[in-house]
C-alpha cells in the first residue's frame, strides 16, 4: 500500500522523484504511463496523491486524471502534474479534471515536500 503514486514514462524521473520521497519517509509506488497508473490505482485504494507527467505514451497524464475522476469514480485522491508543459490550455483542462496543482520540471523535492506531506495526510 502506497501513499503516493509517481507516474512518468522516464525512469530517470521516476527514480528521482520516488527516491526523494522515500528518503523522506513516504511510501511510494510508480507507474510508467497513464494506463499503468490507472491500473495501479485500481489495485491500491490507499493512494492519497498521484504525481504525474503529462506527455506519455499509451495514455497521457491529463486523460488519466479525467479517468480517475470519471471511470474510477475516485473523487478524493489528490493529483499533481509534473511536466515541462506550462500551457494555460492544459492547465484549464487539468483544473476541469480536478487536479490539485502543477509543477514545471525539473523536480525540486525540497520545494514541494511539505505540501506533498500535507496532501498525503489530508
Amino acid at each position, binding site marked *: 500500500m502506497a501513499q503516493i503514486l509517481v507516474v512518468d*514514462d*522516464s*525512469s*530517470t*524521473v521516476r*527514480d*528521482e522523484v520516488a*527516491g526523494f520521497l522515500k*528518503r523522506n519517509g513516504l511510501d511510494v509506488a510508480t507507474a510508467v504511463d497513464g494506463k499503468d497508473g490507472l491500473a495501479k490505482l485500481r489495485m491500491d485504494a490507499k493512494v492519497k496523491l498521484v504525481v504525474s507527467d503529462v*506527455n*506519455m*505514451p499509451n495514455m497521457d497524464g491529463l486523460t488519466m486524471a479525467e479517468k480517475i475522476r470519471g471511470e474510477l469514480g475516485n473523487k478524493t485522491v489528490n493529483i*499533481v502534474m509534473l*511536466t*515541462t*508543459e*506550462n*500551457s*494555460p*490550455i492544459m*492547465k484549464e483542462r*487539468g*483544473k476541469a479534471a480536478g*487536479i*490539485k*496543482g*502543477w*509543477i*514545471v*520540471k*525539473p*523536480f*525540486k523535492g525540497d*520545494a*514541494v515536500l511539505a*505540501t506533498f506531506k500535507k496532501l498525503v495526510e489530508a
Partner: protein
Amino acid sequence: MITDRAKASFDRLLVSSLKSGMPVAGASVSVEALKELGKIKERKIVILTVSSYLFRALAILYFKPDAATRAYFNRHADEGAHALGDDEFYDRVAECGNVVVGALNRDLGAIFPHVGMSTPNIIDKDCMQYVDLLGCSLTKHYKIVLDGELTLYATLCVADYGLVDFHVDPTVEVAVDTGELEMF
C-alpha cells in the same frame, strides 16, 4: 518563410534553453554557435520536435555513450551513484533533452499558443541525412561545453509552412518558476 528576426529569436530561445537545461548538479555550461558541425564523433542523437501549423522545429542533441558522458549524466543521482546501464543512461540523456526542449516549447508557446511538443527519441546520427527532406529554412549548430571538459553538440532545424515572424527581446527574461508547486 522565416523572417530574419524570427530566425534570430529561434536561435536565442534554443541557446537559452540549452543553458538552463543542460547543466546537471550545478555544472557550468557554455554554448557556442558553429558554422558547421564538421566530422563529429558522436554516434547517437536525442531528437525532439516543437510543432505548429506554421512550423516544425527539431532540436537535436548529439552525444557519445562513453564513460565521461555517462559519468556526467549520473551526477544528479544523490545517493550511492552506480554505473549506469545503457537503458538508464539513454533515459537520462532523453530526459535532459526533454527539459531543454520543454523550455523552448514554453517560450514558443507564449508566442504561438497552439504549439505541441514530442516526447524524446534516441536514434543513430546517420538518420540526420534524412532531415534534409524536410526542407528546413533554418539550420543552426551549437557546441556545448559542460564544466569545461565534456563537449556535446546540438542542432536546431526549423521547417516553415507559412510566414513565421516573431521577435524575442534579448533583454527581457521570461521567468518560469520551475520546480515550484502551483496550487489550484
